[in-house]
């Protein structure tokens, strides 16, 4: 199978990368009617599968689950999840032939095998739904021409998808229709109805394309979301220990700090995050984040280039074929880092202290979010798509670090994201070696304001504020966040 994106002429590449429409709530007035009475069959019953299915059924739709024979016969967890919540469960052969919509919620790596198994069983004119476009775009999976192919991707973990639905809200969602597979022109109506069924229409829906989703998703997860958070966490911890800060304190500051800091990001963007610092600290964080952007820009660009050319997925798929040799090796190495092995100390760290004593992370986050956003936009991805895959998701990933450190983050994210994260981390650490030599405990571990009188130059402060606030990610973010104001704070610390 050939990389789908690379088969397209440049004109069409740009066309598909540029699909981006933040949809008005009036577009969802038809509710779930496009799927009413249709048979929805979900493949896989993990966290996304189960929770999306519960929502769809509670919206009045007909949902059942199909699992592999072995999962049913072995009464695996996925089988129990589905049957104990009173869903019908059957084999591919039993359920797929009657399905109007087949929803593929299995991991990326299994997509080719799963789709090859179900496609021959699907009835003429049915719909295949993905929540990620990797299989179509990077692997170039060809879907039968009579079938409609759509994507609905809730931008939150499965548990949140359910929690927000039952309280009467939803999670931000991305939808797309594959232009090669929309023979009846019903793809968009069905994708919208699916969105209403899962509650996503209340929290902001972005219409995208398979191509734009994949190219931006890969970029975001490799760089700011997972890659830089991992690099920044490890470097910060090591620096504090090197400078004699108590290891338990350092471990706790790093584990929970990124969550507390990015909660401000979620509520009010980079502006709100930077505003949590004192004026002196803000100016300092601004300066070092500018420096960090200059140092890391070539690396961000390389990642984006490799994603666009298909080089990234080619090497990763080689590793799949190789039994995940590299992935498993890098995963083991991450488990061996000092940060990972040092438990968080039994010390109380106040909410503001996470900002004051961890100015370095604020700088890392600003640099990473802005760079990822800028690089994506320069590559032809629209600002709204770039926002979702950079700023929007950062707090969600930070939350996984707060739960159980990097190991947990890498367990929760997809293998694809994890693979890209390690690639970035390995290249980024040496790049930052000189920069880190200059970093002292005022930036990480101790209160930056200590021993300073707090005075700043008015004009400098105004300029810094202006630079932060006028960045495009802030302007687009302000608009998009309005649609999701009701999102709940996730708190661990």
């Amino acid at each position: 199978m050939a990389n789908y994106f690379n088969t397209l002429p440049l004109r069409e590449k740009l066309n598909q990368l540029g699909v981006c429409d933040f949809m008005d709530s009036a577009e969802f007035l038809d509710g779930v009617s496009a799927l009413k009475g249709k048979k929805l069959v979900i493949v896989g019953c993990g966290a996304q599968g189960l929770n999306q299915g519960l929502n769809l059924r509670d919206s009045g739709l007909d949902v059942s689950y199909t699992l592999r024979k072995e999962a049913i016969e072995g009464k695996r967890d996925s089988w129990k999840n589905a049957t104990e919540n009173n869903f019908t469960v059957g084999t591919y052969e039993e359920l797929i032939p009657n399905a109007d919509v087949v929803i593929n919620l299995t991991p990326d790596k299994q997509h080719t095998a799963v789709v090859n198994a179900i496609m021959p069983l699907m009835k003429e004119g049915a719909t295949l739904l993905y929540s990620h476009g990797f299989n179509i775009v990077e692997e170039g999976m060809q879907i039968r021409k009579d079938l409609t192919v759509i994507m609905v991707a809730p931008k939150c973990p499965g548990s949140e998808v359910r929690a927000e639905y039952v309280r009467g809200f939803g999670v931000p969602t991305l939808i797309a229709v594959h232009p090669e597979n929309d023979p009846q022109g019903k793809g968009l109506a069905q994708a919208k109805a699916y969105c209403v069924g899962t509650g996503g229409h209340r929290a902001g829906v972005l219409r995208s394309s398979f191509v734009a989703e994949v190219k931006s998703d890969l970029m975001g997860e490799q760089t700011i979301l997972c890659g830089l958070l991992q690099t920044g966490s490890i470097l910060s911890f090591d620096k504090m220990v090197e400078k004699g800060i108590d290891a338990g304190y350092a471990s706790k500051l790093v584990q929970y700090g990124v969550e507390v800091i990015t909660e401000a990001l979620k509520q009010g963007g980079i502006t709100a995050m930077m505003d949590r610092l004192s004026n002196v600290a803000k100016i300092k964080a601004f300066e070092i984040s500018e420096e960090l952007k200059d140092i890391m820009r070539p690396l961000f660009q390389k990642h984006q280039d490799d994603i666009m050319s298909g080089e990234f997925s080619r090497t990763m798929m080689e590793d799949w074929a190789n039994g995940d040799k590299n992935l498993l090796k890098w995963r083991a190495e991450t488990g061996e880092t000092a940060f990972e092995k040092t438990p968080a100390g039994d010390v109380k760290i106040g909410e503001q202290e996470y900002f004051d004593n961890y100015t370095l992370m604020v700088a890392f986050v600003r640099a990473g979010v802005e760079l990822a956003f800028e690089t994506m936009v320069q590559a032809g991805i629209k600002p709204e798509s770039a926002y979702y895959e950079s700023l929007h998701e950062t707090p969600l990933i930070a939350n996984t670090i707060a739960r159980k450190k990097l190991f947990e983050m890498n367990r929760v994210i997809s293998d694809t994201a994890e693979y890209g994260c390690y690639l970035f981390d390995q290249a980024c650490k040496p790049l930052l070696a000189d920069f880190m030599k200059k970093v002292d405990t005022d930036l990480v571990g101790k209160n930056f304001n200590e021993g300073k009188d707090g005075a700043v130059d008015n004009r400098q402060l105004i300029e810094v504020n202006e630079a932060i606030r006028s960045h495009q990610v802030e302007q687009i973010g302000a608009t998009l966040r309005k649609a999701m104001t009701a999102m709940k704070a996730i708190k661990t610390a």
Partner: protein
Amino acid sequence: MDKPFVYIHDLNLGYRNKAVLKDLYWEMNIGESYAIGGESGTGKTALAKAIAGLVPYQGNIEINFDGQRKLPQEVLYVDSWYQFKNLEGVANFYYQQRYTSLQANDTLTVHAELVNYGKEKGLHLDQVEPILEALGFATFAGSQLIELSSGEHKKLQLVKALWLKPQLLIIDQPYTGLDTASRKNLNVLLDQVAKEGVQLILISNDAELPGSVQSFAEITDGKLVKVAALASSTTEIRLREIPDFLKESPLYSTSDMVKMVNVNISYGEKQVLKNVNWEIKAGEKWLLQGHNGSGKSTLLSLINGDHPQSYANELYLFGNRRGSGESIWDIKQHIGLISPEFHWYFDPTATVWQSVASGFYDTVGLFQHLPYTKSTQVDELLAYFGLTENKNELLSTLPLGKQRLVLLARTIIKNPELLILDEPCQGLDQQQTKYFNQLVDELCSNGMTLIYVGHFESQLPTCIEKRILLEKGEVKVVESLNTEILS
């Protein structure tokens, strides 16, 4: 002479710029146990938390522990509210979560929680067994924390306290959510630990206290005053006139509100409801009773569209078979519901006004703009409940009793056909309870259908005419009542 066990002088404590405790002076002698009563909002909880060192205060609080006594030299405060986290340390849960079957364990089991607690406090597990038995909690050892109802969480808190036996044990609202039998057993257990040397402070207006509690006090004008007995308020309350929009009789599209035919609910091996049959006709007023853990909440969750297993049962709601294409929002629009669990899971970021307004849409938190008529109705109802001055405050910052009033207002705001009140008055004082029950009577006189859950027969609205009793998931009694039986 011995120093008093607790010695407080010049205690001052404010709550949001308002002085609550003023120059409070108090001595509690060795061997004494107290009940502290009085109206809600007088500062009882604040005082208790100050004694336990949980809130900042000005002045002096001395606890003179007895080095001779073997019991831990510790003050334990048992909150009237409970907290738990999932295995990943996150305390974000949602109301319906405990009805969903999920293989991966989200929270610790009761047993694991007790093992952890015992380890932390150096206690032996064999000593907790009799307490679990006495409170009827032993069967919950394998249950996850998320599966527990509010009454069961209360029991878990009490089990820990009675196991630890600290020299000073302060329990805020010890009886909240407990059924009658558990209350009696709790008093026996409290007397036992008192005999072993635990001194008690119970914050409660309840009449049936353990025998070891012989001293009483109330907070008046920021000072703790010893009284001969806790006064049960006898003042007659007159109901204000209810807002006009609540006087309209519901328009029923069918007289069959609820019909359950041999309903069964189970989680793995554990069966929670067994062959339940129940029919509710429009306008009927039901009392639903049963011990803690008898299946009441699960039964109500079926009616409110909150239970995933309703789809496999023969259940009819408002004339339609469940699972025939309706959404849970179609169901909820007929219903106004409140329960202790619903309160616990409610959105802490909503203001009082938003919380009440969200009742129009059955959402937890407000996600849309209210049209003018609806928004006026919210204002009217807030005024009716005396909550106007709190309308822009965050719900979660109000005292629990007030929070409960707000959610009660939310429950009736849309003048629903079916009112489900699951222990609605938990956390309210007697006056507020009486007041609310009179309101329920008035609403019901206009034809509203009611399901009321309450353990205390003295605290029920008078309109109730039918009773269903659950025992271990089975219907034991369905009967019509004349009001005499209840009084």
